[in-house]
């Protein structure tokens, strides 16, 4: 087990270098001069532009810029943004918000999705199943910004149940609405995954055996059916957590959440290499950790895929 984890951590090292290099190159290759863009229609004196270029090493060739950045990382320095803030500070400020939002969304979609999916699967073809399928179909086909705007308008502006945007400190009560919006699409996916998995498992021999042994439904459904149906759902949740961390840009924008997506978007627009690369690197590392945790979870659900070495 520890040997397995160790090997997985070792694998993360080339991934780290590969991603930082690629992302840095992409930001570098983005057309346009970020220093000029800082000033909009105004043109500062050429000397000031030159000064700023030097300050952010933008006058250096790509490979030098990259090694200055990597060298900084090993000294614990992630560089500074154009606004003069250390990138490490920005990371420390935005990641907790986005992680909180992602966990909340994950919680909503997991609990509700598995519950609805399980009931649907057990009552295949009944009214509950049909309506759950219809609702999930609608949710899947709606783009997330439509759901976000409608939810914001209905619950925030008209009913006044929630704040229209997230307030300072991103308290949990403000994050509920954006988390629900984020969860809505994955919720629909999970319902469908769980449902089909439950239907499949219910028809298997060991379930029939369990029934014929006289076990109660109360024991068969959670232990025999649900547990064996969860593996595809867990795999989906792992990828979804990554997507929630990275892909919340639209939702974060609409609800003005001071999180990763919002900040990363602006950094990309401004061409701030160090900020973009640091953010993406942390995301990649998080993604690796989440995947590792999920692989270990498989073992808990199905002892046959436990890692023995």
């Amino acid at each position, binding site marked *: 087990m520890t040997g397995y984890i160790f090997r997985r951590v070792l694998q993360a090292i080339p991934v780290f270098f590969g991603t930082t290099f690629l992302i840095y190159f992409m930001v570098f290759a983005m057309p346009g001069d970020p220093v000029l863009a800082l000033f909009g229609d105004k043109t500062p004196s050429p000397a000031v532009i030159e*000064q700023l270029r030097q300050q952010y090493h933008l006058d250096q060739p790509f490979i030098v810029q990259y090694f200055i950045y990597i060298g900084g990382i090993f000294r614990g320095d992630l560089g500074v943004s154009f606004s003069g803030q250390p990138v490490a500070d920005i990371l420390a400020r935005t990641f907790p918000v986005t992680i909180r939002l992602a966990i909340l969304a994950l919680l909503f979609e997991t609990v509700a999705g598995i519950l609805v999916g399980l009931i649907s699967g057990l009552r295949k073809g009944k009214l509950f199943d049909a309506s759950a399928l219809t*609702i999930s179909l609608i949710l899947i086909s709606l783009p997330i910004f439509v759901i976000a705007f409608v939810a914001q308008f209905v619950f925030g502006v008209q009913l006044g149940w929630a704040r229209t945007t997230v307030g300072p400190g991103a308290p949990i009560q403000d994050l509920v609405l954006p988390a629900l919006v984020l969860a809505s699409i994955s919720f629909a996916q999970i319902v469908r995954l769980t449902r089909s998995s439950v239907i499949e498992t219910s028809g298997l021999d060991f379930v029939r055996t369990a029934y014929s042994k006289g076990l109660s439904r109360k024991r068969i459904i959670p232990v025999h059916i649900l547990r064996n149906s969860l593996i595809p759902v867990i795999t989906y949740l792992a990828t979804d957590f990554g997507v929630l961390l990275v892909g919340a840009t639209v939702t974060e924008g609409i609800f003005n959440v001071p999180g990763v997506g919002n900040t990363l978007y602006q950094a990309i627009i401004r061409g701030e290499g160090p900020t973009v690369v640091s953010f993406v690197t942390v995301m990649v590392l998080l993604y690796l950790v989440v995947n590792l945790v999920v692989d270990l979870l498989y073992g808990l659900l199905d002892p046959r895929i436990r890692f023995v070495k």
Partner: protein
Amino acid sequence: MKIRRIGIGAIALAAASALVLSGCATGGDTPSTSSSGDSSAIVSTNGSEPQNPLIPTNTTETGGGKIVDALFAGLVYYDEKGAPVNDVAESIESTDAQNYTVKIKSGLKFTNGDPVDAASFVDAWQYGALLSNAQGSSYFFADIEGYSDSADSPLTGLVVVDDTTFTIKLSTPQSDFPLRLGYSAFYPLPKSAYADMKAFGENPIGNGPYKFASDTAWQHNVQVDLVANPDYTGGRAAKNGGLKIVFYANQDAAYSDLLGGNLDVLDAIPDSQFANYKTDLGDRAVNQPAAIFQSFTIPNRLAHLGGKEGQLRRAAISMAIDREEITKVIFEGTRTPASDFTSPVIDGWTDSLKGADVLKFDPDEAKKLWAEADKISPWEGSFQIGYNSDGGHAGWVDAVTQGLKNNLGIDATGAPYPTFKELLTDEDNRTIQTAFRSGWQADYPGLFNFLSPLYQTGAGSNYGDYSNPDFDALLKKGASETDADAANKDYEAAQEILLTDLPVIPLWYSNVVGGHSEQVSNVKFGWNSVPLYYEVTKK
């Protein structure tokens, strides 16, 4: 619709139970949101995260500008009409538009107790102008004697006479220099600032109508909290308890907050709401011209667009554009058709310049002029307008090029660039081979500011490389007048030259489109489209 609501309701129910089960374990690090003082009188408004530390001479964009303007008081401030009013200054005098004597009011203090004296201004300007400090607004000091943008050199034109008096010597006469002194680059700094300018920019200490509510008032990417400064005695004394400037990356979010009652004053209604903001807000909507001029530049180097032939073609292009129709249909009346190269909110603006007819829609005359130009040398190729597609320009560019197609019978299209910075880079390198969108937002309310940086030979933002000695001479003459009206007459004459040469095709003035909540009243917008926050009262 109904089904979706039920769906969301179901999730909400499940979610609520999940929250209870999890015991809200993730909410541990939520800071308290209550602020000290009379919180009912805090006015909230929209802003954006400043792109630089809050040092006045390095604040060149609106996000930081709004905060800096609230924190600092300069020699003068601009009233609602854009006219300068003495703030810290007691008097600013000159007999030749080149040598100025500034007397400041005595006994004024920064919020940390440091005195506001002549040195506060002179030292701050020296700092802002010094090349190695790389301040974005350094070019504002270019007219002061001693300025250099190739080596570190002190502004020898600034001399402190005594605690409340200093003199300014300019390298050339500049009649509108006193008018510029309300711009943020000219704000004073306390002595304590220079020890660690970066730390100062994080937590600035000013002398203006507001001050930071606490040492941690600036929550990056979230908001900044300001409270009224009781020691401020100038004409901008706050009529409310403070300001909460909330940073939005997305203006739609700000608009939702305004409708949802979370925001008091919004100074930029997003384009997507132009069609319905008037119904949403009623008499709380604001739509008035601003000091923003929009145009497209036709560089002289383009084939068939220089010389006499170019003049005819430029006039034809200008007359083939139906500005009235475009501002009404595409912008829902949130632009005002241009009748000159400046803006109606600027003192000295007039809509009756000689030759301004070239900005009126006249397809027949346009066709005639185009045909005349064809006699000099026949037109070939297509006319393109470069624009950045991240700025909502596609709509009007399509409308303008469609107008050129219909009225001149030529091929005309837009040439989109993905981002603003790509467009700018091509303009700066002079590699752009098409016309391109251009615009100007004034730094201070003067006609000169709309003309000199854009059309003077070799000027910083003269991306079309326009050059006309007569125009340059008139600007120079205007700058050396000591009488503002006489100067404005020169600038009018200079604009009449522009109307013949048309280095850019004027399109329209942007309006400031904003609104406010029912909780506040007395919301007025200044000449620079920023609300006069100090005037806002909260119920």
